[in-house]
């Protein structure tokens, strides 16, 4: 650490950090736009970019070409929109948990929230024989109930990050035990159906699962923007944050509610797609390299990872369509591993 002389130096550093933040945001936005275009373009019937724009605008302009419009608006667009929305929701959920609990491993798919949703869904499929929207509702209820249980059990005149993490892994263990038990007891075809749901897929993309998720995000995202302002102070530790006038307990409860909401609605829509929540935050933090911010960038990374993974899943193997959850792990985690390996400078992982 060098001693910084005068306020000029500090201003210069602030300016360069802000510039870096802007640069990363622009790069991520461009990447997302490229991914969106590609996801509308690729397929058995490629649609030229000009046609994509015309199709997207056709409800307004009245310039209709039925065949192309059907492919773009009814087949590819719902899938793309759902990928973006779930990517954003998973990424924000993971980034909030990782920052709030001050542990890069503390994403909802490790501290029990996803396990709760999965266990509820497997119960619906294997025990109750439900499929379709019922499974989604079950998963939503499971995620919320598990989160509530974790918070309630970690409460002892207030909660601490450490206690939430530990209670969370306890809940995760119980829920995975439930899943494993049902897997060994059920018939193989039911297990296959449950496994397909657990992997997560965008195949069922339609307005039926886009609208609830979009509505949830419309409420949760402004709440996130409002609440994360308190998060920077809480990074200093509970006592310091309290001394600076932050209502730690309320901010934390609010953030947990928002993060759980993101994860729960996204899981209900597409299943517990693995590790989007886990990798988005670290990737964004890596690109930012300590330039502050992180939530907007995490959301952009999440959407891109989801969309990119889905394209790989659809087109990587001829004649086979993989579910997106098979690829997110390889795609997202592979990217994170590459980042970790590529950065050899000190202090890059914060």
């Amino acid at each position, binding site marked *: 650490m060098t001693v910084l002389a005068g306020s000029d130096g500090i201003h210069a550093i602030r300016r360069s950090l802000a510039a870096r933040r802007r640069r990363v945001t622009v790069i991520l936005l461009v990447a997302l736009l490229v991914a969106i275009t590609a996801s509308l373009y690729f397929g058995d019937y490629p649609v030229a970019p000009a046609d994509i724009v015309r199709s997207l605008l056709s409800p307004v302009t009245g310039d209709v070409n039925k065949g192309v419009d059907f492919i773009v608006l009814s087949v590819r667009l719902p899938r793309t929109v759902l990928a973006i929305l779930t990517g954003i929701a998973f990424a924000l959920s993971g980034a909030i948990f990782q920052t709030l609990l001050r*542990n*890069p*491993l*503390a994403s909802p798919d*490790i*501290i029990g929230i996803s396990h709760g949703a999965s266990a509820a869904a497997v119960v619906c499929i294997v025990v109750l024989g439900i499929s379709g929207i019922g499974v989604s509702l079950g998963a939503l209820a499971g995620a919320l109930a598990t989160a509530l249980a974790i918070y309630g*059990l*970690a409460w*002892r005149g207030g909660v601490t990050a*450490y*206690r939430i*993490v*530990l*209670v969370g*892994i*306890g*809940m995760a*263990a*119980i829920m*995975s*035990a439930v899943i*494993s*038990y049902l*897997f*060994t007891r059920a018939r*193989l075809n039911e*297990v*296959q159906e449950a*496994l*397909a749901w*657990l*992997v997560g897929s965008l195949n069922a993309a339609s307005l039926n699962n886009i609208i609830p998720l979009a509505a949830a995000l419309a409420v949760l995202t402004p709440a996130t923007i409002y609440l994360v302002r308190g998060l920077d102070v809480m990074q200093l530790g509970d006592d310091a944050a309290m001394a600076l006038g932050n209502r730690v307990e309320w901010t934390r409860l609010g953030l947990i509610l928002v993060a759980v909401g993101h994860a729960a609605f996204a899981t209900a829509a597409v299943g517990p797609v*693995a*590790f989007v929540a*886990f*990798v988005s935050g*670290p990737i964004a933090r890596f690109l930012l390299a300590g330039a502050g911010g992180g939530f907007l960038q995490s959301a952009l990374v999440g959407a891109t990872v989801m969309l990119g993974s889905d394209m790989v899943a659809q087109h990587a193997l001829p004649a*086979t369509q*993989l*579910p997106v*959850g*098979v*690829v*997110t*792990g*390889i795609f*997202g*985690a*592979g990217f*994170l*591993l590459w980042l*970790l*390996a590529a*950065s*050899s*400078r*000190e*202090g*890059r*992982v914060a």
Partner: protein
Amino acid sequence: MASTVRTYVGNQQRMLGLGLVGLVLIVTTVGFLSVTVGARAIPLAEVWTALTAFDPNSTDHRIVWDLRLPRTLIGLLVGAALGLSGAVLQGATRNPLADTSILGIHAGAAVFVVIGIAVFGIGQLSAYVWLAFMGAGAAMVVVYSIASLGREGATPVKLALVGAALTAALSSVVSAVLLTSPRTLDELRFWQVGSLAGRDMSILIQVWPFLAFGVVLALRTARMLDGLSMGEDVARSLGQNVPLSRGVAGLAAVVLAGAATAAAGPIAFVGLTVPHVARAVTGPNYRWILPYSMLLAPILLLGADVIGRVIAPPGEVQVGIVTAALGAPFFIALVRRRKLAAL
């Protein structure tokens, strides 16, 4: 003043030592229970004659020698290995969530087993042992070499991130295979819950040298972990070689967890939680945490196995399920009641 402190510390040490003796007694008791209890109850006296004067024509004697004894010994060793590896990894990475399941070891083992089943059509437990062991070792080598790239070497955060990322990537591979091959899913769903059933002496003979080596190595890391727990800078200023310490601790954890996973399948809960229980009893000193974890874990594992045998007759519930179903509520209660020592 100094003498009061010394008396206090001395008393505490004596209590912890007594606790250790108590744990050894409980482990022994659970071991005996595991030999006697099961679908066919065998009284202790009969077990004793089976051990001292084996009669090949007696069904009871055959059950003791062929089924119960290997199962009990594997349970004891696997339990000790899981507890120790969890404690060592949490100490070396200073992360309460660090565990062999998160650091890529289980996923590596699972990938190799899945490929063994799906591609080479391997179907015996004894062949899984080597596959799982190779997979665990390969995963840890990858995790460690990626994490140690760069000037600062394998920092705890990088280890944890790389491990979790590799786990993510490998589980994707596993689910891809499982989705396309129902036969593999049918085999793997019984392997991946973690179980002590159906293991015979040949499995024990394959894994025990690794387990013994791992236990010795792990118990020797206590002083290094105590140093690391004060922070890297303090450890270094006390003359400790930090990368070497982490390397030795990592090696011990991999050997133990790899061998345990090879013998009994991936059991996540034990290694993750038992060290926290041990820490709640002993305080932050690894010279006590390690032996306590090593003895508490087999009590949990073998106890859960005994319960799993009798809880759902005529079938059995796999030990991986019972440890989580019984252990997790206990663990949560402990987290609530105690002011846990943070890492």
